[in-house]
């Protein structure tokens, strides 16, 4: 299903089959180049596939933006241990709703990406870890997997290549933290989703302490197109070091919110105004969170920017998971910061004290300021507390909570100060519940 109208400005690579009749089926997939990339990969051999991936400049679509080809290259192909392919489909970063679409509209594209990964690192088992809320997506995937087995695209001696590969879906049960790769692996092993200290990275010691290729749904889904049409063609769609397209999830105060596939490096203002129909109600743009709730907010005047990993990093924010959250002039930045902190406090697994305690106290401080009970010293205290969390936790959740908070306070200090000493929120009469 598609939940919003496409935009004429889209460049459809991963979403090229979206909207085709029965796009979930193997027949539709085969009719539009399906499983050709796997055959080609087998002819090329693992080394050349890796090279092609590196040329493509595909960078991890889960949020970190690490080069996918390099990540696969870290897996010791000749290790005597079994190797695994794990798909991170625990989509949970607020503002992000693209992996759901990729799985429900084109499950075979994901399966083919997994097959190619398995072939490259000599893995024979793959798991798709899907967040528990996406039950219908698991059902779609299971049907696609069953169809692939029936027709010889999974199982033993796939397409006569001598390569064996099994795929299983695995449901999560409600946890943002399990979207972090090491916590996901713990969860997949049947434990609480607490992160592991790294190194060793999953490429060396992942699932069951065995070498593991672990990528986001969108990263795996990009692989068939890269192998089929060549890494150079994919790279050319984007900007230097940021190959291809990506699915941007535009939400918030725009006329046409939706998920749109656009080239890497697409200008953010153009994205808001031309793809998403501009700020709704003719209001002025105030701020944008460019890549999901953990990414530092951009002020309106910072939004004339190329949406790629490096440009966003240069602007001291992140491209993250592609969740573009647009806020108009009537949005209370204190309330936005508080709601985001409530989320991170709820999702902190409690393993690392700076995150567990830091998110709790930041939530309390932000709530106090928003309710009008804050004093002058609270504003710098919020910033300092957040800065003290940075880099002091096993996994990035602590940073994910601290970074947006620091940006909200630094960029909208006057709004925080307007809430102090009993002043009512300038944007509304009733306080947000803490």
């Amino acid at each position: 299903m598609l939940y919003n109208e496409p935009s004429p400005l889209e460049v459809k690579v991963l979403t090229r089959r979206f909207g085709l009749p029965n796009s979930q089926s193997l027949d539709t997939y085969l009719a539009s180049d399906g499983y050709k990339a796997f055959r080609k990969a087998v002819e090329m051999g693992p080394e050349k596939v890796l090279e092609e991936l590196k040329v493509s400049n595909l960078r991890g679509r889960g949020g970190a933006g690490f080069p996918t080809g390099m990540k696969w290259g870290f897996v010791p192909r000749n290790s005597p241990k079994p190797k695994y392919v794990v798909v991170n489909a625990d989509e949970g970063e607020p503002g992000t709703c693209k992996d759901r679409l990729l799985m429900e509209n084109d499950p075979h594209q994901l399966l083919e990406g997994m097959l190619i990964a398995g072939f490259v690192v000599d893995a024979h088992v793959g798991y798709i870890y899907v967040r528990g809320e996406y039950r219908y997506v698991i059902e779609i995937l299971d049907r696609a997997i069953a169809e692939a087995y029936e027709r010889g695209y999974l199982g033993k001696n796939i397409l006569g290549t001598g390569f064996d590969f099994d795929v299983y879906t695995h449901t999560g049960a409600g946890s943002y933290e399990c979207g972090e790769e090491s916590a996901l692996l713990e969860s997949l092993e049947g434990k609480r989703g607490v992160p592991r200290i790294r190194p060793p990275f999953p490429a060396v010691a992942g699932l069951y302490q065995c070498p593991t290729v672990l990528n986001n749904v969108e990263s795996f889904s990009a692989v068939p197109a890269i192998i089929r049409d060549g890494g150079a063609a994919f790279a050319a769609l984007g900007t230097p070091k940021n190959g291809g397209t990506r699915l941007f999830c535009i939400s918030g105060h725009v006329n046409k919110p939706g998920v749109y596939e656009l080239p890497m490096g697409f200008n953010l203002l153009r994205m808001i105004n031309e793809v998403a129909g501009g700020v709704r109600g003719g209001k002025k743009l105030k701020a944008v969170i460019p890549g999901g709730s953990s990414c530092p907010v951009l002020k309106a005047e910072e939004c004339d920017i190329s949406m790629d990993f490096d440009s966003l990093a240069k602007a001291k924010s992140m491209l993250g998971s592609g969740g573009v959250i647009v806020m108009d002039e009537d949005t209370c930045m204190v309330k936005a910061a508080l709601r985001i902190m409530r989320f991170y406090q709820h999702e902190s697994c409690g393993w690392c004290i700076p995150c567990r305690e830091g998110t709790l106290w930041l939530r309390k401080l932000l709530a106090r300021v928003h309710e009008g009970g804050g004093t002058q010293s609270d504003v710098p205290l919020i910033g300092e507390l957040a800065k003290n969390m940075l880099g002091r936790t096993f996994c990035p959740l602590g940073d994910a909570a601290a970074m947006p908070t620091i940006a909200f306070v630094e960029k909208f200090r006057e709004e925080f100060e307007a809430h102090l000493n009993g002043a009512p929120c300038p944007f509304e009469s009733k306080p947000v519940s803490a």
Partner: protein
Amino acid sequence: MTFSPELEAKFEKLLKSYPPGRQRSAVVPMLLYAQDELGSVTGELVEEVARRTGITPLEVNEVVSYYSMLSRQPRGKYHIQICTNISCLLTGGEELWEHACRKLGIGNKEVTPDGQFSLEEVECIGACSWAPALQVNYEFHHHMTPEKLDRLIDNLRKAV
């Protein structure tokens, strides 16, 4: 403990999905699928899952207390989960939540006296571009408004 034939088949498939000796991996899916059938995670279920996966009930309990979708308390027949996270907040998710509480006369994680409805304020459910959004059990509802919510609840009531 016995389950429906469908759930038994699911368990059998699950336990074969992981390498030999790694059956603990099936714990979270088993608990969630069983909860769908039983209505909650009972003490008896914890013992049973422990037995079938070869770990202790304590290890299963550690898992139960971690995951937000697993619940030891029975929920309503229709568990309404409303997202109020940032994208939904910006598009009326908070008003939707308050409206649902008033309409059903219950609060967060509470069940109506007839056991038909329960409410939960949830974190991002992955429907940000079609916000505000909610789920009734596993079913998504996008672009919600208080009026649409009224119709949804009234229709579910008729179905009861």
